[in-house]
């Protein structure tokens, strides 16, 4: 049979189709998700630590194995990494977002408002120990109607991390940490007086971290950032307490010159300074201590954590897991069981702590290995197990533990990241401009924050 097209034309047609096919193929790839087969429910989960953290990775992988053995009807596909806002929406749009995904406490409100999480109100009710979780932490994952969209798995409150060797060198008692901002100021003066570029107190002021820390400052002075006014949220920090907080910061930066000349800092910068032994104090949660020890070859004995100075309040933060809104009811059920079993399981406290002891990891810090999300008897049980296995000088952090029972913890404001971006500039103004007008900065920030809060649904 003869063809309509000559061999040359046929070859050209083939090339054309191949080129078109390849193009469409490249464009089409990247969609689709691993669905379950063989009666098993397969779920993808985030939170797998990177291979650069071999201990944490090992614990996670062992937990996945154990979970699959004890739950033969659930197959876990772990994905490395935590929350990356840059890829979150793209993954969701492309059907690539994991079934169970990690979030910071700053994110749920916005994710819920954008309908990007599954409603787990009913499914969560049946979870074992659900009633032992601190209700204020669950509130972080609820919408205005009280529907639940996620579970908290870790919680921290801000305190004051300080260098015990620098305290000693400066003639301060490392066992007597500063309790008020005035004491912080005095200690910072003595530490900065050591010279050689030593900084008494440092704070963040970049990439929304400045706003985050300023919020903690405001809470510590007894101020709020936002409050509910009827059905709406409004800014609540144009007051004397906020002025006192900023004046304290200004005085330390410009009058005392105890905060160093370099500003626009973020977490890594400050941790590097602390790790290098050039910084006396900074505001942080106790989970910073293992970072300082591991990344800068420090010693647990060298660091102390005090409760938030001022004692009027502290900022609560943390992390949790939410479920993909496109997940089937079976996947939602399986996902919640994974989160409960892995992160919210009092029956595994002892085993989890033992994993840390065996791996020569710190136990006894007011942070990992067991999350501080419990109330009542479960919390007491958790504290007893940690105390029994403690391998770090827990007395160095006792001041923080005592204070956290006493100080009122407040969660982050609504639309937290946008509010923090605005407060960043207030922090920066005070830290980079000797003549910054604090009243003007505050009232300008209030009007900006009000326009952000007006969008809260």
């Amino acid at each position, binding site marked *: 049979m003869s063809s309509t097209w000559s061999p040359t*034309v046929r070859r*050209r*047609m083939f*090339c*054309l189709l191949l*080129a*078109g096919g*390849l*193009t*469409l193929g490249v*464009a089409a790839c990247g969609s689709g998700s691993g669905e379950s087969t063989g009666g098993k429910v397969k779920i993808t989960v985030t939170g797998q630590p990177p291979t650069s953290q071999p201990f944490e990775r090992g614990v996670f992988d062992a937990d996945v194995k154990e979970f699959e053995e004890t739950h033969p009807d659930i197959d876990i596909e772990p994905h490395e990494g935590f929350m990356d*806002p*840059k890829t*979150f*929406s793209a993954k*969701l*749009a492309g059907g690539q977002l994991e079934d169970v995904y990690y979030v910071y406490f700053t994110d749920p409100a*916005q*994710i819920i408002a*954008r*309908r*990007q999480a599954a409603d787990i109100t009913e499914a969560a009710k049946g979870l074992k120990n659900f009633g032992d979780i601190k209700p204020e932490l669950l509130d972080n994952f609820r919408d205005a109607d009280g529907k639940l969209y996620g579970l908290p798995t870790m919680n921290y409150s801000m305190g004051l991390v300080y260098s015990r060797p620098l305290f000693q060198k400066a003639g301060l008692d490392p066992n007597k940490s500063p309790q008020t901002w005035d004491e912080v100021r005095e200690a910072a003066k003595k530490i900065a007086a050591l010279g050689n*570029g030593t900084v008494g107190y440092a704070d963040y*002021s*970049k*990439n*929304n971290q*400045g706003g985050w820390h300023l919020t903690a400052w405001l809470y510590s002075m007894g101020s709020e950032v936002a409050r509910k006014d009827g059905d709406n949220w409004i800014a609540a920090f144009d007051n004397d307490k906020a002025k006192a907080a900023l004046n304290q910061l200004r005085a330390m930066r410009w009058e005392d010159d105890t905060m*160093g*000349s*370099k*500003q*626009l800092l*973020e977490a890594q910068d400050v941790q590097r300074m602390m790790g290098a032994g050039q910084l006396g104090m900074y505001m942080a949660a106790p989970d910073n201590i293992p970072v300082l020890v591991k990344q800068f070859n420090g010693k647990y004995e060298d660091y102390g954590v005090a409760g938030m100075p001022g004692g009027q309040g502290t900022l609560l933060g943390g992390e949790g897991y939410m479920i993909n*809104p*496109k997940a089937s009811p079976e996947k939602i059920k399986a996902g919640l069981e994974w989160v409960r079993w892995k992160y919210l399981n009092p029956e595994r406290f002892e085993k989890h702590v033992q994993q840390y002891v065996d791996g020569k990891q710190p136990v006894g810090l007011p942070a990992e290995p067991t999350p501080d999300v419990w109330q009542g008897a479960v919390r007491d049980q958790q504290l007893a197990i940690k105390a029994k296995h403690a391998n770090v000088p827990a007395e160095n952090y006792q001041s923080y533990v005592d204070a956290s029972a006493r100080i009122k913890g407040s969660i982050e404001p609504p*639309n937290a*990241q*946008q509010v923090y*971006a605005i407060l*960043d*500039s207030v922090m*920066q*103004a005070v*830290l*980079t*401009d000797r003549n*910054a007008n604090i009243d003007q900065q505050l009232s*300008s920030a209030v*009007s*900006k924050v009000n*326009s952000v809060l007006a*969008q809260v649904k």
Partner: protein
Amino acid sequence: MSSPRSSSVLDWPATASSRAGRPVASAAERRRNRWRRKLKENLTAYGLLCAALVVFALFSWYPIVRGVLLSFQQVDFVNPPTWVGFDNFTRLFEDPLFGVAWRNTLLFTVLALVFGFVVPFVTAVLLNELRHAKAFFRLAVYLPVMLPPVVTALMWKWFYDPGAGLFNSALGAVGLPGGQWLDSSDTSMLSLVFVSTWANMGSTTLIYLAALGTIPGELYEAAELDGAGLWKRLIHVTLPQTRFVLLVLLLLQVVATMQVFTEPYVMTGGGPDDSTVTVLLLLYRYAFVYNDFGSASALSLLLFVALGVFSALYVRLTRKADQS
């Protein structure tokens, strides 16, 4: 594209005898045949063109169209987008940072043009006047372009460090007081412009050099015979001869500098006191910090329109340059 087979002799024997043996084709048929022949001859070209068009459509035009649509929608990537009219734009106009970002971007553009336009031109003129080691200096000027932008930004961040940074250490060594560079809202933008100029001047200089190379040597010789020095040669020969390249590069630089992102993102995060928040940095925040892709798209549409004006000017000028 023409093929070697385009000669009609091969396809259409033109002898009278052969023509007599077949019916005379109608005009429409001839046109159809001609079209078929052309298609056959250029099939490969059309194939390659189609592939390129598909790639462009998918990866360039579709995102632009989608971006325009998104700017009028609220999106959550779960449910179908909902139309919100001009709400996203209203939100942008109500954002106090909106005006600040545009003002900062324009300031950066103006400063970047003052430095980024003049410095490479002067460098190119000087390099052109060199008698020896031309290649070495060309390479030396071009080297910074090869550095990844983030590396450049981080390196300059250390230069600017008010404590142990290169600049303040050097100033301190000769007894001068150090500056706050990035840490003061008075100097932060200027400091970023220096980085941008340093990083990008290599490629601009090379384009100027190429333009200078096209100027006929006789013009300079004639000018020299008339007693013109370097300055007069620059004013009366170099500038008039390179005016179109200058204008085109000016517009390209406007388009490029208005999209500044890496330097403020890496070096200042928009600070201090919002003095380096640019339009693209604000756009980034809307998209990836606030997760508001509708407003981010609205902002990108506004930037697109602003840059479109300059691009239209660019196209017009290059056409004019070609014609002349």
